[in-house]
């Protein structure tokens, strides 16, 4: 699993780590059982305090996204389908929030905004759907 952070964009690094692991797991880029980098390894690789990594991993564990096994690397947890679906919805919701703010700032009404989102969805139709 690749984790990259920008230590200078203001977002606390532990949150960047949590967000990235969360994204990779919910998007299915890494499946259950996939190993996370060790705390010391990630700390060295990114040049960040190991406690920052521990903090991020602790939050992911509390969230049920990863599981800790004594003396072994953390792995991505196996989660029920319903939980997975909810996590995906939460993720998209968070991404849409700034878009909603922009719509308000631009004074675009709800119907127009939804139309625009539908059009955007159409533009990135999945390959298997475009063939039909």
């Amino acid at each position, binding site marked *: 699993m690749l984790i990259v*952070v920008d*230590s200078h964009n203001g977002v606390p690094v532990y949150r960047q780590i949590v967000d990235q692991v969360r994204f990779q797991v919910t998007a299915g880029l890494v499946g259950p059982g996939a190993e996370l980098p060790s705390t010391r390894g990630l700390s060295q690789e990114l*040049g*960040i*305090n190991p406690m920052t990594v521990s903090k991020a991993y602790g939050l992911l564990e509390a969230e049920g996204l990863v599981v800790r096994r004594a003396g072994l690397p953390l792995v991505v947890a196996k989660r029920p389908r319903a939980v997975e679906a909810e996590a995906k919805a939460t993720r998209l919701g968070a991404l849409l929030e700034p878009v909603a703010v922009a719509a308000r700032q631009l004074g675009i009404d709800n119907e127009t905004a939804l139309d625009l989102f539908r059009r955007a969805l159409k533009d990135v139709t999945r390959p298997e759907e475009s063939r039909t």
Partner: protein
Amino acid sequence: MNPVEIQHVSKSFGDAVALADVTAAVPRHSIVGLIGRNGSGKSTLLRHMTGLLLPDAGECVTLGLPAAKLGPAELARIGVMDQHAHFVEWMTGTQLMRYVSSFYTTWDRALERDLTELLEVDASARVGAMSPGHVQRLALVLASCHHPELLLLDEPLSDLDPIARQTVLRLLLDRFSRDDLTIVISSHMLRDIEPVVNRIVCLHEGRLVADADSDALRERFAEWIVTSRAGSLPSAFDDPFVVSAQGDAHRARLLVRDVAATDAARFEAAHDAAIEARPLTLEQIFPVLTQQASGQGRPRDAAEAGGVAR
């Protein structure tokens, strides 16, 4: 027990107040960034931790002892790097390392070799002929090879180029991961130390303005880009959480602190505006920490754990 406890320490040199009632703690196995402008008291505070300076009032307790009472046994557990080390100039790096190592029973020759190589220290050169950057790297080797449990570094990055700074910081992280080590590092290189430290102690004109977990400190501040739909933003905001504001009736940039959960929604409704909140870096928070401190009364709540003075 915290490796270092600074309790109401005050220190003056003649009429000049260097430290004014400073209370702060360095928790075990943490990397503390000691920040502040030139002359804010960083070096003076570090010198109190080893008993090189004694307070006029208050006490600095290091490794369980008042710093004035530190003996050889305790000092052997501390590594110190001075801002501008004055080493014996006629010795070569190797001679100096042999000389310094003779004071310690725990000196690690293998670690010495590793660090000398990693930091590209030319140990065969005479110390007097080394550039400031090389002396600084040698000083770090000399402070580290006896496996100290407390490492006090005064401006260890000041004479280093960007590559060497990263090498040094990664080395410190590596030492920190392997040994049960506590590090205090004073620096102006806020961008460099920000990802490495997990606590911040900030001094301003001898007074403590922050002693907090670095994430918690950062999350207390934010920048709001406020866009008004009606173009009706006031020229000044009287909300208590607004630190500063600039802009016009349509758009404003606000620095905010300690915003409560409901504040943003209430603010948006009150001004018929939309807020785009952005996090701030340590470098952006630093001026706020040091500005608010001047011209106001002595910070009262700063000594509380995780506290930041208003």
